[in-house]
């Protein structure tokens, strides 16, 4: 490794995790004790776990909202809640699950795992990472503050105008939602940039782009998509807010505004977003399932390409949410075709997974049960999507419970099931202890049966013509029994989630000790101790294949990855920077120290958005000023952080 820009030539040594070097690295990298240390940490593992815990808390909140909704709908003509309360509940449920749970939980996994999988010591931009977490948390609290005072979103997560405009929606609900979403979008954007830079820049030498594990492909693709999609909806929400507060006329019909403009801007974001919250989850399965089949994933390259292609086509299908809006048939035909074409890359993955099980040696474990059942749920969610992609069929089933069934098979089947499976898989890495397998089986079967009992009948009630977003329904239309079954299933599913929470709480303290690689898995994260030390790798590994820990048994490559011998980087917090495609090391990156500034900046944004909500000038000014100061402190240059050779003195 001789690159001029290195500030020095790193030593290459074999070192263990109990050497004096490891001790030194630990002091350098570990989070400082105390509350300030806790609030200042930029350790991707801490942040990843916070993401996961916070998004699970939102999952539980959204779940409780859903259960109240299901109680209301268990029988016809009930009044468990008022229509207004119902509309806020179903809207907040959607906002919570789609924004505050589904993406952040995947960001949590990726945050925790990426540097470990990539053979690096942290995300490329650790402080930005902390910032994106705090911003996610505060934007979630902002949205829930509205909900708590009875001003939560009340127009569904899709928030169609003109119902969202002031004449029909005079309260602050829509201002909370519009500003809250823009706030949340900042978190997604910051996170997206960080994932992009990390994937391209901070990896183990040798981990060229063709050796990316699927977890990298899934999250990278999703975040690239988000960076392109989020501006569309942030803009739309901003326009909504100015329409409401300053009398602009983007959507206001009386003054020449266009209600359909909202739908285009929203779904140009909304559909890619749906892929962004399933592709990383699918990649959890693509990486996790092979571990339990004792073979590499069938068609690794095909599945990686399918992931990217799905995202690209995902930008060209948004109009299938608008087939009933009176668009020309020719335009709709195009989007019908695109919605069918996007099935093909998904089918690539499905057949790859089935073939992996078919040709592998399957091992039953709670994680693998979640992964296998996911494949089947994915297919159900897929074919119902195929049905709604056909324009004439969609005219009938759109906005019925059929679509509610579809979206839940997609979001629970393709997001929650892989995530829970992923938790069983990686919990030992995160905590050093195994989740209880016996409780795990109960957990799996309760969730699986409860889910299908609860959500499959939604397809039936949809085919029987039950519209979605209705707070009640009359007797005599044949919807009673299916709704009762749905409610019972939803509660069983909730018990399954509760079992998971119990398992996590108990196993954290009392689970079986895991050891570094309890599943005998192939990726780099399993070469570190469990839980990994703050610095991840005592020496930075070099990678020679897609499956560093399986090389000896697969015997497919000439060279071998070197895991326990590598660059010693101990002059402060350091990791290697590599070239984007071939992962040839070209810099020793000086990584930033812990800082409370990301939290402070995020807090000042919170104040800014409260100021905008209240339209209070001095508060806005104060927040902007504070934000500038915090940014300056955050970015203040320090010689010790210089990335280039210091000039000779």
């Amino acid at each position, binding site marked *: 490794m001789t690159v001029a820009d290195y500030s020095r030539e790193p030593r290459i040594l074999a070192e263990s995790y109990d050497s004096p070097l490891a001790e030194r690295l630990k002091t350098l990298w570990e989070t400082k004790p105390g509350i300030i240390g806790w609030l200042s940490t930029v350790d991707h593992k801490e942040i990843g776990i916070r993401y996961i815990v916070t998004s699970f808390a939102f999952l539980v909140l959204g779940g409780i909202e859903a259960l109240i909704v299901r109680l209301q709908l268990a029988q016809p003509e009930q009044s468990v809640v008022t229509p207004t309360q119902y509309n806020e509940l179903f809207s907040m449920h959607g906002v919570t699950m789609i924004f505050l749970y589904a993406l952040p939980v995947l960001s949590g996994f990726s945050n925790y795992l990426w540097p470990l999988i990539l053979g690096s010591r942290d995300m490329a931009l650790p402080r930005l990472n902390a910032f994106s977490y705090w911003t996610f948390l505060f934007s979630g609290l902002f949205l829930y503050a509205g909900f708590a005072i009875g001003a939560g979103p009340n127009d569904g997560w899709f928030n169609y105008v003109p119902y969202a405009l002031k004449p029909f929606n005079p309260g602050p609900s829509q201002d909370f939602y519009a500003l809250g979403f823009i706030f949340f979008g900042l978190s997604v954007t910051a996170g997206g940039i960080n994932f992009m830079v990390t994937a391209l820049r901070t990896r183990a030498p040798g981990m060229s782009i063709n050796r990316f594990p699927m977890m990298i492909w899934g999250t990278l693709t999703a975040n690239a998509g988000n960076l392109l999609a989020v501006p569309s909806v942030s803009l739309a929400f901003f326009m909504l807010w100015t329409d409401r507060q300053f009398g602009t006329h983007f959507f206001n019909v009386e003054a020449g505004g266009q209600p359909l403009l909202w739908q285009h801007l929203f779904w140009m974001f909304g559909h890619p977003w749906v892929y962004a919250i399933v592709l990383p989850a699918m990649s959890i399965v693509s990486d996790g399932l092979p571990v339990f089949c004792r073979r590499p994933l069938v068609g690794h390259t095909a599945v990686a390409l399918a992931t990217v292609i799905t995202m690209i086509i995902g930008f060209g299908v948004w109009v299938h949410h608008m087939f009933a809006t009176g668009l020309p048939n020719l335009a709709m035909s195009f989007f019908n075709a695109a919605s069918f074409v996007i099935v093909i890359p998904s089918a690539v993955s499905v057949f790859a997974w089935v073939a992996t099980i078919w040709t592998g040696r399957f091992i039953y474990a709670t994680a693998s049960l979640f992964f296998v059942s996911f494949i089947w749920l994915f297919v159900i969610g897929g074919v119902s999507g195929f049905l709604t992609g056909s324009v004439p069929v969609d005219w009938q089933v759109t906005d019925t419970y059929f679509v509610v069934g579809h979206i839940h098979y997609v979001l629970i089947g393709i997001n929650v099931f892989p995530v829970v499976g992923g938790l069983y898989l990686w919990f030992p890495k995160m905590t050093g202890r195994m989740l209880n397998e016996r409780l795990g089986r109960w957990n799996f079967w309760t969730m699986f049966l409860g889910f299908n*009992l609860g959500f499959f009948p939604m397809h039936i009630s949809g085919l029987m013509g039950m519209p979605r977003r209705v707070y009640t329904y009359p007797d005599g239309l044949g919807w009673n029994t299916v709704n009762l079954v749905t409610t019972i299933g939803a509660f069983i599913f909730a018990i399954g989630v509760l079992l998971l929470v119990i398992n996590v709480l108990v196993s954290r303290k009392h689970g079986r000790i895991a050891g570094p690689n*309890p599943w005998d898995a192939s990726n780099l994260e399993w070469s570190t101790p469990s839980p990994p030390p703050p610095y991840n790798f005592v020496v930075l590994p070099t990678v020679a294949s897609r499956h560093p820990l399986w090389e000896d048994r697969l015997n497919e490559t000439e060279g071998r990855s070197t895991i326990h011998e590598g660059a010693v980087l101990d002059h402060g917090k350091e990791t290697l920077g590599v070239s984007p495609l071939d992962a040839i090391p070209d810099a020793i990156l000086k990584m930033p120290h812990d800082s409370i500034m990301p939290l402070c900046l995020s807090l000042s944004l919170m104040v800014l958005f409260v100021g905008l909500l209240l339209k209070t000038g001095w508060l806005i000014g104060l927040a902007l000023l504070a934000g500038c100061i915090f940014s300056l402190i955050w970015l203040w240059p320090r010689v010790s952080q210089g990335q280039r050779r210091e000039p000779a003195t």
Partner: protein
Amino acid sequence: MAQNRTVAKALAALGGVIVCAPLTALADRPMSVLRSAGPKGDPVLQLNWGLLAISILVVVIIGTLLVLALSRQPQPRLAFDARGPLPVSRPAGGITWIYVGIGLTALTLLGSLVWSMVVLANVAVPSGKGGLELQVIGHQWWWQVNYIGDPISRRFTTANEIHIPVGVPVRITLKSADVIHSFWVPALSGKTDLIPGQTNTTWIEAREAGTYRGQCGEYCGAQHAHMAFSVVADPPATFDAWWQAQLADSPPPTDDSAKAGKIAFVRRCGSCHTVRGTDAGGIYGPDLTHLTQRATIAAGVLPNTPGHRGAWIADPQGIKPGSQMPVLSLSGPEIAAIQAYLATLK
């Protein structure tokens, strides 16, 4: 192996019970989308069943493959508690799955696409010429129906109940007075949105006489759940008689209570509701000229009986919270009088 069987049995039982059994019972429900009562619905219904069959087949095939993949595993099974590293290998043949799978998927999709496009073209406009023209305007939370045929003297307005002649295509223009709604009569036609600032069109045609239920298909606020309507298809002669009757003004009330009711109605209700032939000419609520001819009130919420009409006038916000119909704090005698007057609106 025992676990295999559990998985297999669970999947089979689940599939059998929740997929097949209820599907057969679906078609006769009032709002079922698996039913067609006219030429616009027929090709869509075939497509619905066709794509549904393909979908169910795909789910069953992949489910079977998964169960087979799990049950054909070599014995003994591997387990993580074994000592030493587990075997890892890359058996050949996996990629063939993707080639074959994608080939079949693409062919199926292509066929489905062609079929969808053919249906789309077939139902775009009615095959016959002529027919009836209607205008439907969505309001929070009821339907205004304007019969706009020529000459102008043949035009009138009603609400929430659309009468059409059997066997005649009915072209409908759709508008909204406030937010987005969606016009949907499952047995006759899929959804078309009513969007403010925009005029959409759809058409319906009923093969047989009967009443077909419809409901708003797009979330439109507090009472989206209570925005139903019905399409009543009559034999042409009956339809013409109905039209003729609708064109007439309501006959003036004769008994005293109804006369008093009329005065109270014009004063208290007339700024929102119209009764043709009286001073009540409001345009914010449904036209009530021939109120008693309709089967329901409040957009399908209550049956149209004197008792229910009285209850509705007394407490609209209790029955349909958030509705635009205000609580007028009418006295008992006032309500009784208005009730008596409404009963004369034949």
